[in-house]
């Protein structure tokens, strides 16, 4: 009798668990996979339409079939990893400079009202200039193409990081400054122990935005003189009419961009003490 009861209880528990596990699975995997499936169908249908249109059939290699075949060839040839590494190096270096300039400046303009009042107009003015508009100046100002591209990425990444940091500093509870001064904190201790941990989630949110912009700016920036990177590879594929390779590189750019964004989102959550219990 008691055994029957135990079995009934266990079965109920499993059913109960299953009821909650299913929505969790749907939220985590099924919805995103459905979205990807829809995108794939639209892509496939677009490819089919192009292939069956006499005026556009020259572009039929944009369809999923040729694209995936080209992707396999690219991976097999080993050229892809070189292109990816070159692009990641430029984005990474640009991002590091954007971080190194953006975070301290953001702290300064967030902490000192007078600094914000002085810097606001020029910074907003500079922020509104497309990073690509700096291209001719970058070519003139820097000795190497690589440096010019990195400069363009810095111009794209510095603003979201700076303004996000400044926003984070403004949100700091003023009582925290009073408490830490009261406990004998020096200026450096205040920055290291209070300000930086308090704003880290905002800084990372800025980095996430910056990574998105940098990745978008990278492709046109790599049209500049260089002979490596994903932007160059796209340009080269277009010039040689290798549309399947071009589409495969676009696919790779999207996948890497998504992975970078996911990594940044994880970092934002890691530093987000607002959500911690």
């Amino acid at each position: 009798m008691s055994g029957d009861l135990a079995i009934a209880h266990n079965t109920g528990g499993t059913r109960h668990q299953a009821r909650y596990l299913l929505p969790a699975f749907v939220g985590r995997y099924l919805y995103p996979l459905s979205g990807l499936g829809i995108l794939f169908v639209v892509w496939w249908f677009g490819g089919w339409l192009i292939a069956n249109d006499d005026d556009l059939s020259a572009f039929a290699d944009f369809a999923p079939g040729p694209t995936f075949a080209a992707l396999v060839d690219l991976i097999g040839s080993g050229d892809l990893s070189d292109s990816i590494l070159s692009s990641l190096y430029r984005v990474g270096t640009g991002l590091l400079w954007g971080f190194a300039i953006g975070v301290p400046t953001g702290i300064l303009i967030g902490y000192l009202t007078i600094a914000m009042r002085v810097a606001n107009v020029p910074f907003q003015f500079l922020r509104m200039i497309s990073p690509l508009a700096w291209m001719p100046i970058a070519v003139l100002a820097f000795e190497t193409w690589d440096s010019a591209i990195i400069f363009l990425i810095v111009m794209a990444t510095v603003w979201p990081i700076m303004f996000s940091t400044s926003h984070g500093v403004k949100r700091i509870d003023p009582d925290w400054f009073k408490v830490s001064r009261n406990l004998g904190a020096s200026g450096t201790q205040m920055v290291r122990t209070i300000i930086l941990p308090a704003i880290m989630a905002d800084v990372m949110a800025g980095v996430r935005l910056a990574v998105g912009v940098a990745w978008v700016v990278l492709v046109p920036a790599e049209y500049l003189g260089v002979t490596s990177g994903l932007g160059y590879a796209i340009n080269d594929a277009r010039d040689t009419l290798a549309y399947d390779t071009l589409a495969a590189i676009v696919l790779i750019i999207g996948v890497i961009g998504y992975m970078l964004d996911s990594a940044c989102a994880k970092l934002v959550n890691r530093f987000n003490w607002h959500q911690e219990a």
Partner: protein
Amino acid sequence: MSGSISVDYVSHQFSETAEAVLVDINLNVKAGELVSLIGRSGCGKSTLLHIMSGLVDPSEGCVRIDGKTVIKPSARWNMMFQKASLFPWMSIRENVALGLKFAGIGKKEISSKVDELLDLISLTEKADVKPRSLSGGQQQRVALARSLATSPTVLLLDEPFSALDTFTRSALQQDVATICRQKGITMVLVTHDIDEAVLMSDRVLVMDQNPGRIIDEIAVDLSWPRKHMNQDFQRVREKLLLAFKGTEKTEPPRTLDGGRHGVESSAA
């Protein structure tokens, strides 16, 4: 014993054109004494406490602690605020240890001191959790431990219990007064709660407003621990209430340039 406070001719206004918040405050607090500043909202009692802590520079006059002029905040004269203001990304242990970390104390010494303080506030089992999972009363206990960690000679309390429920407040009032007496810490408490002032102090200073000044002083000659229902407690409470009622009439605001008229505390 150290921790004597001397407030000499302190006047304050927040800007040159603003009304004076405090005028001619003179006050002496003996080392180890428990003093309350009581007055209506806006009478400048919190400003006076901020000046004592060094967080605000007075427009005129000065504050001395153990004979040294207070020019900036220090962990030796620590302040507790209305909000616990714990750092949410730090564990309770890290919050309590903060002042010691700022002072460059070694990890081992910090650890034993923090353990001792967590035991004192009965929160040892919560050492590694984040402040968000604590109640308001527990958070305020942690703030107390954080203030005590640097072994201050003076504890300045800016209405630290006002946001707490009655039971928690009552327990903390007893705890803080007991700890200060046991450790010989000088306490200056700002409050507008008459019972709290009588419960925790050796002496209560009554402040008037517009401009803020000390108008009366009442000694609380009751034995410890104090009970609200005690007849002597009620006697002191009535006395304080009468003095407090005297602050009902308000005078026109004056600036510091408009002549001095502060009533000097007999404690000075």
